[in-house]
């Protein structure tokens, strides 16, 4: 039911602002999907395509997905409204956090909390790295690329652009050859 087939730019911005400021630690994709489908801004096939594009192109998935939905609803102005809506609340929140950080970081309790949080964030990132590596386990080429990339960046200090060109490009080439072989077989 396209309840709101041509939404106002304000309602697009407000919808994404609400999603961005209330969804902690994932779950945003599900709430975006629910909101935009219920409002009839986009159909579910387009949403799935948008999700895929949002993940392939550079930029945070949440922002890219919001832009995609805003653009489907109201063109480029809709995309800009969605971007503003989805990024301004986190910006405001992080600024408050930053102001508090610079005011209180030297307080021993806050300092302790920050150090604890940093240890937690390290564990979180390492856990994510393990999970993501596990997802690549089926191909030796992929596992080798993971290792080679990490060595090139952390030990050889290779900058990001050549890293993406060499190891990202290599991965894409490998994937293309594999798909090609499969379609010929």
């Amino acid at each position, binding site marked *: 039911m396209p309840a709101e087939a041509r939404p106002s730019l304000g309602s697009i911005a407000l919808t994404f602002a609400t999603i961005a400021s209330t969804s902690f630690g994932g779950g945003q994709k599900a709430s975006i999907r629910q909101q935009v489908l219920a409002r009839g801004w986009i159909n579910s096939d387009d949403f799935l395509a948008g999700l895929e594009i949002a993940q392939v192109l550079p*930029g945070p998935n949440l922002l890219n997905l919001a832009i995609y939905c805003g653009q489907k609803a109201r063109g480029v102005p809709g995309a800009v409204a969605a971007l503003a809506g989805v990024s301004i*609340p986190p910006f405001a929140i992080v*600024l408050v956090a930053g102001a508090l950080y610079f005011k209180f970081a030297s307080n021993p309790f806050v300092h302790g909390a920050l150090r604890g949080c940093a240890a937690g964030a390290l564990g979180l990132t390492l856990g994510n790295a393990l999970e993501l590596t596990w997802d690549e386990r089926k191909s030796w080429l992929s596992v080798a690329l993971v290792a080679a*990339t990490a060595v090139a960046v952390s030990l050889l200090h290779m900058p990001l652009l050549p890293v993406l060109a060499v190891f990202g490009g290599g991965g894409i080439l490998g994937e293309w050859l594999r798909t090609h072989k499969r379609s010929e077989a």
Partner: protein
Amino acid sequence: MGTLLHLLAVFSQLSVLGFGGGKGIIPQMHTDAVTTYRWVSSEQFTQFYTIGKLVPGPTTIFAALIGYAAVPQHPLLGAAVATAAMFVPSSLIMIAFDSFEARFSASPWRAIISRGLAPAIVGLVWSSVWTIARGAPSSVVAYLTSAAVIVLVLRTKINAPMLIVLSGVVGVAALR
């Protein structure tokens, strides 16, 4: 003025290279912000990254905090420039892609690119672990906290901000 231009250059480059949702840009951001321009220390970098994981929205919003620290005379301006540079270029690519979408809709390239890039992104996440570790506390309690979080990430569905808050509680008690 010079610093603002450098913020703009650094973060807009990271923005267009932010494949995989931006997971892979942390090591380069550390090189730029800590080693090259000395806007923040390694310890601050790790703590800002942590705040980025804690607040709602994308983790890379912590670019704002680096901008805040880089321009002490006008911290809000620094934060705004860094954030705009971090988010606007990738957003413009996303907006511009709309015109090409029809051509790509049935194409296998989307899957080939995302699957092909994945190993390099995962390798960059491993390098991020190293980057973040450089500014994280080194003590037995800190290592045990990290280890406990790894187990909780792999074995439970507890979300990231909650895990960080729990680690913060450990920190108040034992890492002062």
